[in-house]
């Protein structure tokens, strides 16, 4: 019985744990969700992820799995219906390559844009826009990165949603329809998807989150 005892440790505003929610919901897997307070981590979390002490952690039949892409691959291999990764090895490699790109290049730049000002911030914005142009090159005319329905790379690219909320909260202009029409179109489709839209932080609370945490650094420009 594969569904027995699935738990997810996450936080409401983490794109990484939200990725896992998407994967589990897509596969229709019942799970218990534990909201962690990262300033006061539970003994359970520290026990399940002693190496990084981070969320997300998936626990399946008592065995923990950490690191969001590792968890997503585990979910795909354990519950085989509604596949997240494509079947073809080359396409799988492309999905993994771009997912890695998002976490290793896009994510650090997206974080940096929130804490820089003036010329330095402008440079980071240019960098992010170039990264998103690269992603558009991978998306091309497809409905989603995964094709007709969303897949591994679409889920990995959920960080773009966080950037869009942040830019609204802080009055920045990074991803807009004019500059990045392909990605903009993709984003609307993703946010309209029945499964996906349940796995983003509530908009108002998320806007407040960015305003409170980063508002002053932008305002002091």
């Amino acid at each position, binding site marked *: 019985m594969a569904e027995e005892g699935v738990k997810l440790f996450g936080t409401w505003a983490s794109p990484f744990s939200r990725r896992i929610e998407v994967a589990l919901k897509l596969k229709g897997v019942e799970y218990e969700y534990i909201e962690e307070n990262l300033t006061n981590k539970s003994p359970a979390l520290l026990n399940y992820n002693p190496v990084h002490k981070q969320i997300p952690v998936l626990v*399946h039949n008592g065995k923990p799995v950490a*690191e969001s892409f590792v968890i997503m*691959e*585990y979910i795909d291999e354990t519950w085989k219906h509604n596949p997240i990764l494509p079947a073809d090895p080359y396409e*799988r490699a492309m999905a*993994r390559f771009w997912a*890695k790109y998002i976490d290793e290049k896009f994510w650090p730049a997206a974080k940096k844009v929130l804490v820089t000002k003036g010329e330095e911030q402008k440079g980071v914005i240019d960098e992010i826009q170039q990264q998103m142009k690269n992603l558009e090159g991978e998306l091309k005319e497809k409905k989603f990165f995964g094709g007709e329905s969303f897949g591994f790379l679409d889920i990995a690219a959920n960080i773009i949603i966080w950037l869009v909320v942040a830019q609204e909260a802080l009055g920045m202009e990074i991803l807009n329809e004019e500059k990045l029409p392909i990605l903009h179109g993709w984003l609307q489709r993703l946010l309209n998807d029945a499964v996906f839209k349940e796995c983003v932080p509530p908009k108002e609370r998320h806007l407040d989150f960015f305003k409170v945490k980063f508002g002053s650094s932008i305002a002091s420009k």
Partner: protein
Amino acid sequence: MAEEVKLFRTWSSPFALRVVWALKIKGIEYETILENFPNKSPSLLQYNPVNKQVPVLVHNGKPIAESLVILEYIDETWNQSPLLPDDPNERAMARFWAKFGDDKVLTSIRSVFIKQGKEQQEALVPAMENLKFLEEELKGKKYFGGEKIGFVDLALGWLANLISILEEIVGLKVVDEEEFPLLYGWMRDFAEAEIIRDNWPPRDKMIVKFQARIDAAIAASAASSSSSK
């Protein structure tokens, strides 16, 4: 149908070596294109325009970059001598430890060797913690992959070569046999394994290269600390 497999690499890249090992374990014929950095060939830039790095595997004209992504591709395309185990949880553990190696072990070890004095002592703390996790993971196993070399061994294989080179240059013992008996044994077993031992880059050339790198890093940090005073 002729399989055309090309590998773009440099003489010393530890990431490219992972792919060499994987191809050899599977007995896959391939052509090597040796890049001479900093002059990158037009082919490399065409095949990996985003990162412009090695390794790049080109299979029947289609390029794949990022060494761990390449390893998974190789494992899924050629089924003999599997690199990853069958069980999903074990596969997840293998991917976890490979990522840990790149994200944490590599960066913390590098910090130790490019720093000096008090800063070096401080850098040793997370490096040692990370090595302890690896030591734990080897309990009851000859290789990280069990009885045979697997995905994690290839991902961490750079340790088996580079650690002793860096220790020699800097004069600092980091992986001590008494403190890390399993890891020390694994480094020796891995380095001497038949598939692995013939592919190491020349040791003297590596010493020259990394001596220069360490010198440059130390000079750069000395310059920035004196300018910030």
